[in-house]
């Protein structure tokens, strides 16, 4: 069958960086192709070239077999290429109906809005994805999954024949991912061509017919989905065999570091009790909305608590007070590091020093720059943060290195218990292994870690004990013996 879109020998550079080197890719009707690769491998550049947003330095794009020398965004849209970006390009302040119909209204060169027509267009569009969403709801009030459906419906409105989805499952629950996959199956059956861009390898193998792997701007592997195992994909993406590693063994004499007793907050979590030993990494998992995120925030004092106690090294810590938690030795690494954990335009040095500023000051409150620099230097080396200098702005670092800066910040503050909430979300596999290695070496020094994650391989490679949360309660404790990927996945599936 003839491909709808075929890119041939595409190269593209930005400044001195070669983003793509001689990459070819074709999309056939009725087929789902996945494009995988680490951050910076050239995935987004390739998408934008297919959409006509960027012009390649060399190579051609064929639309229905016809070569296009300079593909423009409008041409791509006319040929039926639609990209659903991660931000969905929706208007949060407008209603579902208007989001769907706006483009049609503009293209028909109208001056006035016909609200009846807007509703009709929107109803038709949603029917195509087979879901019902209140047309008058403003998009801001939708769930991520619903927003995604609206974005897909919008793409279909423009007679899409190729839909490119950029990391579509990032913020979806398992059930929502399943629903999305049903929509994709449906589109495939209708003869559409899908380019599924993702780093979630499990999902990639589940949904795709074919897979293309990019690494450092080159196509390193391509073929039927069935011929790749998870490890193969990881190998092609990183260029090395990555050992997932095993959890650190428990220290001989167990010594309770952190105790949580009957912690309760109405409508969030109830009667939470657990202990963390010195040198232990305790895993906590559960579905989105199980209360695990609220629990993490509450432990660090970021959210109020109705009742219960928490103790570190036998001393009670006042609840609902962040500065007290920090002084006591608690640290929290948030899921969304750029938003909650870092000052992106500031230097690595300043970001790392911020939580423990007091320890770099003399008794008059003056900072001692020499000591500060030496400490930051040491942590950068210990954590193997790759950056040109201490003065580099954190926003210029990769996700993995940013996460290490967040870790470093708390190490500089003499932390005893580290609460990690999704520590490697959006981090490359290579850097992920690196971060894991750091976490392991931290607990060897006697830190306790609470690891909240829904990344099962991550939990398995770090924790010997995992608590399962559902509807605000700890419903199960899985230890070493009963802990493997299938058991954990089965437990989670049961909760759905």
């Amino acid at each position, binding site marked *: 069958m003839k491909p709808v879109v075929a890119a041939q020998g595409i190269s593209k550079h930005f400044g001195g960086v070669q983003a793509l080197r001689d990459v070819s890719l074709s999309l056939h009707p009725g087929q789902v192709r996945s494009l995988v690769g680490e951050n910076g491998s050239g995935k987004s550049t390739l998408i934008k070239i297919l959409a006509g947003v960027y012009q390649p330095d060399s190579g051609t794009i064929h639309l229905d077999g016809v070569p296009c020398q300079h593909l423009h965004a409008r041409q791509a849209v006319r040929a039926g290429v639609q990209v659903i970006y991660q931000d969905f390009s929706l208007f949060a302040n407008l209603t579902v109906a208007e989001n769907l119909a706006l483009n049609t209204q*503009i293209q028909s060169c109208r001056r006035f809005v016909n609200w009846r027509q807007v509703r009709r267009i929107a109803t038709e569009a949603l029917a195509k994805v087979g879901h019902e969403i209140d047309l008058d709801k403003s998009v801001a009030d939708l769930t991520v999954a619903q927003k995604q459906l609206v974005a897909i419906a919008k793409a279909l409105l423009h007679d899409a024949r190729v839909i490119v989805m950029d990391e579509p499952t990032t913020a979806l629950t398992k059930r929502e991912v399943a629903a999305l996959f049903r929509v994709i199956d449906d589109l495939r059956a209708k003869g559409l061509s899908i380019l599924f861009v993702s780093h979630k390898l499990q999902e990639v193998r589940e949904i795709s017919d074919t897979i293309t792997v990019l690494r450092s701007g080159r196509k390193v592997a391509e073929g039927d989905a069935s011929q790749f195992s998870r490890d193969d994909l990881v190998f092609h993406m990183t260029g090395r065999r990555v050992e997932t590693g095993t959890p650190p063994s428990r220290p001989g004499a167990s010594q309770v570091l952190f105790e949580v007793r009957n912690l309760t907050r109405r409508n969030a979590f109830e009667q939470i009790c657990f202990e963390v030993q010195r040198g232990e990494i305790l895993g906590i998992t559960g579905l989105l909305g199980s209360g695990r995120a609220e629990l993490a925030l509450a432990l660090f004092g970021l959210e109020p608590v109705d009742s219960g106690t928490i103790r570190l090294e036998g001393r009670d810590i006042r609840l609902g007070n962040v500065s007290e938690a920090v002084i006591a030795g608690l640290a929290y690494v948030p899921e969304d590091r750029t938003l909650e954990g870092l000052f992106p335009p500031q230097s690595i040095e300043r970001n790392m020093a911020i939580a423990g500023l007091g320890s770099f000051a003399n008794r008059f409150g003056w900072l001692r720059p020499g000591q500060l620099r030496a400490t930051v230097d040491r942590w950068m080396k210990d954590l193997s943060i790759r950056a040109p200098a201490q003065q580099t702005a954190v926003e210029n670092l990769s996700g993995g290195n940013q996460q290490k800066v967040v870790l470093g910040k708390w190490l500089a503050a003499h932390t005893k218990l580290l609460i990690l909430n999704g520590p490697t979300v959006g981090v490359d596999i290579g850097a992920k292994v690196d971060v894991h290695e750091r976490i392991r070496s931290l607990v060897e020094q006697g830190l306790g870690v609470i690891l909240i994650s829904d990344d099962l391989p991550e939990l398995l490679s770090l924790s010997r004990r995992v608590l399962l949360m559902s509807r605000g309660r700890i419903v199960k404790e899985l230890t070493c013996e009963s802990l493997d990927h299938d058991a954990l996945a089965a437990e989670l599936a049961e909760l759905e």
Partner: protein
Amino acid sequence: MRKLLGQHEFYLAMILTVLVIAIGLANPAFLTRANLFDLCKSSTVMGLFALGVLIVLTSGGIDISFAAIGAFSMYVTSRLLLAVDFQGSVWVAFLLASLIGLALGLFNAVSINVLRLPTLIVTLGSASVFRGFLLAFIGTSIVNRLPAGMIAFSRRTLFEQTLATGETIGLSFSFVLYLLAIVAVAFVLRYTLLGRGIYALGGNAEAAERVGFNLRRVQFFIYGFVGLLSGVAGLVHACTMRNANPFDLVGTELSVIAAVVLGGASITGGRGTVLGAVLGVFLIVVINNSLILLGIPSYWQKVATGGVIIASVAITAIRKDGVRHAAASWR
């Protein structure tokens, strides 16, 4: 009904109703026809400005220069018409003032589009430029004898009625202009693609461009239209005051913006309705008016206005996100 309850305008209207009844009970003079006409007249100039501010805020921008544009247009128009000893219709004055306003507004639009500067900086600067230019080159003296057409306009009233005291009361004709402007802006925002483009721009500029809006054109409309409305508002102000004072109007910017925000417009763009802005302006006018009627020193007006604005925005924030978030947000 549930939809109605979720709306900011509904709460605003409730607050306004309760306030009007309470003040009416405290001082019966408040609910007289004469005072109601007066309230309408008082809200006209502020309301015209507010309609412009609403459009700018909805688009995600901010305009500080509208008061300076208003003062500039009305003073230049008055001086010009006096200089040629113009005896014709007031509509010529309105045309002139709105064209001057439009030109100054387009000056803003060009600066914003060509220099790609934040709207706050551009309009902060241009406000100073317009005002300085006016005082340095046009004049600083108050014009006390306005052209005949403008005086006639200021005397024109609707629903005239002679009271037992022999005093004649009526609704100022300028209020009709305000009503027309309300209908026009509401129509543009709700039923034209341009209007929807303003919401789209305020919601997500990048997506607005992707979906096919010509953002440059939308912005030229916004700032040009604000200038035009400000010119009209300035002239209405001069007619109402029966003089043209180049020092007037400037200094009222923040209370107009506050009234629009009180009406539910988002300071970060994307949200705002004409009904809300009109209610917001009216609420502030009622508070100011009633404090005078109740014999409270006028300095308290500022305190009361500020308090109402903070309380109203707080109520919306709490209702929207739940008390917990409102409480957590300051931490």
